[in-house]
């Protein structure tokens, strides 16, 4: 697998070296097709192939009949003419999978909504109320973004236990915002800064309170930013693993990623079909959501980095 990587890494240098020899032109549209084929289309398709292959493999495995899964020589492993929905059917009707999906969905929506509400208030206060020390609080929130769950989960487990939240969905709903709030606050701060302050001044002169300004002027104008923050936070919740693994022990309260890793891995040699079906079905909601809001998602990701 690593061998496959080497040519890709060598190629930028090779490409650049090939290009360095040429001093005559630099504008993209003047390039000839064969050269674009080598310098652009070929490496790009290679990278895309590697990036997408695991998903193809996941989807293919999920619909392959068991006997074809393990017999690579008698059947063409890269395709199947006899797709079956047995694995997916088994997943949805013979396991807790639907309730795991529901758990993940509920936790993600609840944690995201809480975080967005808290972040809107905080971001507005930092950017527009400019109370004393606001920029320090902004910096502190950015630092909170840099604290990874991997160093927090051990003490958090004891905290969650002390608060009596252990093994309930609330353990996740209340701890996920610590990952989401710093991110969405920074994103929304950037967004609120772009809304003209004059609008707010007019509203103040007309006698609006800060709360009215936030609800009636800022929020309607910030809807694209809110959607971005929501989509990104939702994806982060769905992806979260270590807290869900540590704080939840009952099978029926688990989220999809944890449940798949813990509940599906038995000694059964034919487990691959249902594992891949589980992974595929667990990914689909996010991929569909992403497909609908690509631009919002990308702007959330790049916006947070640019800040």
């Amino acid at each position: 697998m690593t061998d496959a990587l080497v040519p890709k890494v060598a190629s930028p240098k090779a490409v650049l070296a090939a290009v360095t020899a040429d001093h005559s032109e630099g504008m993209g549209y003047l390039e000839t097709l064969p050269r674009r084929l080598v310098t652009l289309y070929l490496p790009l398709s290679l990278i895309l192939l590697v990036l997408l292959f695991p998903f193809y493999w996941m989807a293919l495995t999920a619909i392959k009949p068991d006997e074809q899964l393990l017999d690579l020589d008698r059947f063409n492993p890269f395709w199947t003419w006899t797709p079956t929905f047995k694995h997916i059917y088994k997943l949805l009707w013979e396991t807790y999978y639907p309730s795991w999906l529901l758990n993940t969905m509920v936790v993600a929506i609840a944690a995201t909504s809480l975080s967005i509400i808290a972040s809107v208030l905080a971001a507005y206060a930092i950017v527009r109320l400019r109370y004393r020390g606001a920029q320090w609080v902004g910096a502190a929130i950015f630092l909170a973004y840099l604290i990874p769950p991997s160093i927090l989960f051990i003490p958090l487990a004891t905290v969650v236990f002390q608060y009596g939240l252990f093994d309930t969905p609330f353990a996740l709903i209340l701890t996920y915002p610590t990952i989401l709030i710093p991110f969405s606050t920074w994103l929304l701060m950037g967004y609120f800064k772009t809304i003209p302050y004059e609008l707010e001044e007019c509203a103040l002169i007309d006698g609006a309170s800060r709360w009215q300004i936030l609800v009636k002027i800022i929020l309607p104008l910030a809807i694209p930013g809110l959607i971005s923050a929501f989509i990104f936070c939702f994806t982060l919740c769905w992806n979260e693993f270590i807290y869900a693994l540590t704080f939840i022990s009952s099978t029926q309260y688990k989220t999809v990623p944890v449940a798949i890793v813990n509940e599906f891995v038995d000694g059964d040699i034919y487990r691959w079909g249902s594992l891949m079906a589980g992974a595929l079905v667990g990914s689909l909601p996010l991929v569909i959501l992403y497909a609908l809001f690509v631009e919002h998602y990308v702007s959330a990701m790049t916006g947070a980095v640019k800040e």
Partner: protein
Amino acid sequence: MTDMAELALKSAVADRPVPDVSPWDRLKVNRDWLGLWFMLPTAAFLLLFLAYPLGLGVWLSFTDARIGRPGEFVGIENYEWLWDDSVFWLSVFNTLLYTGVASTFKFAIGLYLALLLNQHLPFKAIIRAVVLIPFIVPTVLSAIAFWWIFDSQFSIVSWSLRKLGLIASNIDFLGNIWNARWSVIFANIWRGVPFVAITLLAGLQTVSPSLYEAATIDGASRWQMFRYVTYPLLTPIIAVVMTFSVLFTFTDFQLIWVLTRGGPANATHLMATLGYQRAIGGGYLGEGSAIATAMIPFLLAAILISWFGLQRRKWQHGESND
């Protein structure tokens, strides 16, 4: 507008003298007071579930706490224990190797992919959307696909290489020490490249084309254009992206947990997975916390490096604080 306001003000002043503005009314428009209320939900979350556990984690690392038993202060015993623990040092080595190799490749391939995507392409928007899919799909779920791809008997990679005549027998991807290390690093690179590529692409798109035109007129080669136009303008965003990338790689847990759980022979244990194994698996909360706390200096170093990277940018551009 101002005349009206003044008029209104004057009449108000004439009708009602000053004392009518109660302290409560003043408080209602006080920025600090309002700010306090607006910050309350965020502060509650971050103090209760972030700052307190962070402090508690450091405290736990100085105790002999176990699951179900509050610990007593034992000084630096946990750290002394770790200092002599070869598995801990192995995990530090693994973490540094994992972070170093994966981040370097993610940066190189990500930047290359960003440069490719920044060119004139048909279906550019679709390709860009597709590139990001590995980043959207939950890590655990794609890691499971990799687990299957890295299977010792039925790996499609082994099969293909065997059919091509490149290898004689199946590769034991996750059973052999170095194979396992390279395999998890590969999976990490695979997942991280889209993030680096798409964020750097956003940076590339802000570079004005007129700069390239000027460089072309001056006779700059493609490499010179990259080195003296693109790269300097991209440095600040590279600093931020790579800080995040290094932070998240260093503290990675999911990928390792799904693919190897630290095995074979602890060869792929990262500090995070070892901490989990000791604290939650073994019940030694104190020792696990000490491992987690030991990650903090590394993280601080990563943040400081990126901070100074950003500072240099500001100094170069002659910007004041923004």
